[in-house]
């Protein structure tokens, strides 16, 4: 039994270098704590992707981005994944912010009253959330990024939300759509 224990990684590591043992065990413990409390703090990551129990939605919304009235930015295919991340995620946040009365998504669930009472907390929030100025500047940035990716000058940008559902045969059917923003540069 003693021999078996001696053969373990942790015991050997402890015997080899107690400081290194502390660093490695500390790192793993903090990773575990981050996971237990679902509170990520890089480099202690939470590995719970796709684990949240969700139910099948009835209605879906698809973001449709058109440049210069004719070029569809197909962020679902045709681009590499890092491209797609930057072509869709910031615009998604823009749409969310619009739907949330121009309030940053980080503020959802944080009551304004409480944040006003804690000065330090409020200061951090103010420094890290997106403000209306950033909201206004986002589309200009997006047009610059499209020029970087596609090599075309952007004269107009149209963001639309398409609402759809799956029918009984699981075919996607479009219900309606609305323009989120149409900008000219």
């Amino acid at each position, binding site marked *: 039994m003693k021999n078996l224990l001696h053969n373990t990684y*942790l015991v050997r590591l402890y015997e080899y270098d107690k400081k290194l043992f502390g660093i490695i065990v500390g790192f*793993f413990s903090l990773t575990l704590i981050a996971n237990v409390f679902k509170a990520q703090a890089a480099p202690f990551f939470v590995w719970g992707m796709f684990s949240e129990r969700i139910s099948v*939605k009835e209605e879906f919304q698809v973001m449709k981005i058109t440049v210069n009235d004719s070029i569809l930015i197909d962020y679902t295919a045709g681009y*590499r994944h890092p491209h797609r991340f930057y072509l869709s995620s910031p615009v998604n946040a823009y749409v969310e912010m619009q739907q949330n009365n121009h309030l940053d998504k980080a503020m959802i669930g944080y009551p304004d009253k409480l944040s006003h009472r804690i000065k330090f907390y409020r200061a951090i929030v103010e420094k890290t959330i997106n403000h209306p100025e950033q909201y206004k500047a986002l589309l200009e*940035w997006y047009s610059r990024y499209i020029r970087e990716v596609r090599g075309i000058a952007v004269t107009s940008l149209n963001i639309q939300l398409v609402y759809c559902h799956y029918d009984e045969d699981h075919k996607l059917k479009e219900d309606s759509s609305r323009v989120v923003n149409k900008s000219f540069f």
Partner: protein
Amino acid sequence: MEQWYSTNIRHTITRCVFVFILLSLIYHYVSHTLLHQLQAPVFQFAFIDPMYILFSISGLSSFIVQHFWLALFVDSCMFIGALLIILFPQKRFLIILFSVLYFIYFVIYNLYGMHHTHILVGILLAPLPFWASNNTTFTYLWSALRYYTLCIYSLAFFWKVFRHSLFSPDQPMAVLKDNLTPYIYFHPDTTQTALYQFFMQHPGLLYIFYLFAVAMEGFFLVGFFTRRFDHALITAGILIHIGILFFADAFFIEIFILYFSLIKFPMSAKETHSPQAVEYTI
């Protein structure tokens, strides 16, 4: 004390890891997502994670992305650093410098991408064992990286068990529709869309695939007790990520760098008989 990994093997592993990193940097360059290519983004998502908050309130992230030449300098240093490490794997200060720069890149990439993805975590952590000043410390750190790889999948397994999503037959259908509806909308007539529709019409089959994927995540727990199945774990990991790519549209190719820690690199006869060459368990 004799060493498990010789200097030669350590250098081989260093080169393998940094060739992978260099390829990833090239992939990000052609994908226009290096710091100097981000066009000074304005939206950020710092909240929730203290490290991102620190970057944001210190102004470091915005200072780098708002200054094109500085961003280009950081990107160039990462490229040249990776290249020099491949040529001179014994230069530890280059590896330490690279790790710091990559950490900055990692945070900025996620901060302005508006989502804290784990795609680059492997590249963030894989260079750390090479900080070791001697090969025995390297051996222990390299093993720690292997245990971390096992942890990732084991935690993913436990998350699905404790959140009961594993026992919900609707879960894979919900994930599929949530993530692939935009693709289906833009590409209604492709074979891929036809396959998704097939799986939607056969939810039982979809659930079996899901259970199989979660079981493969659970399989990583075996790695804590023996190294015998390490190559099978690599296969399981690759299959899991092919599944995630197809059914959830999330591309985790860069996490594969961690699989180097599951590969048995050849050792000389002397090393095989060294006291360190005993199979570890946790």
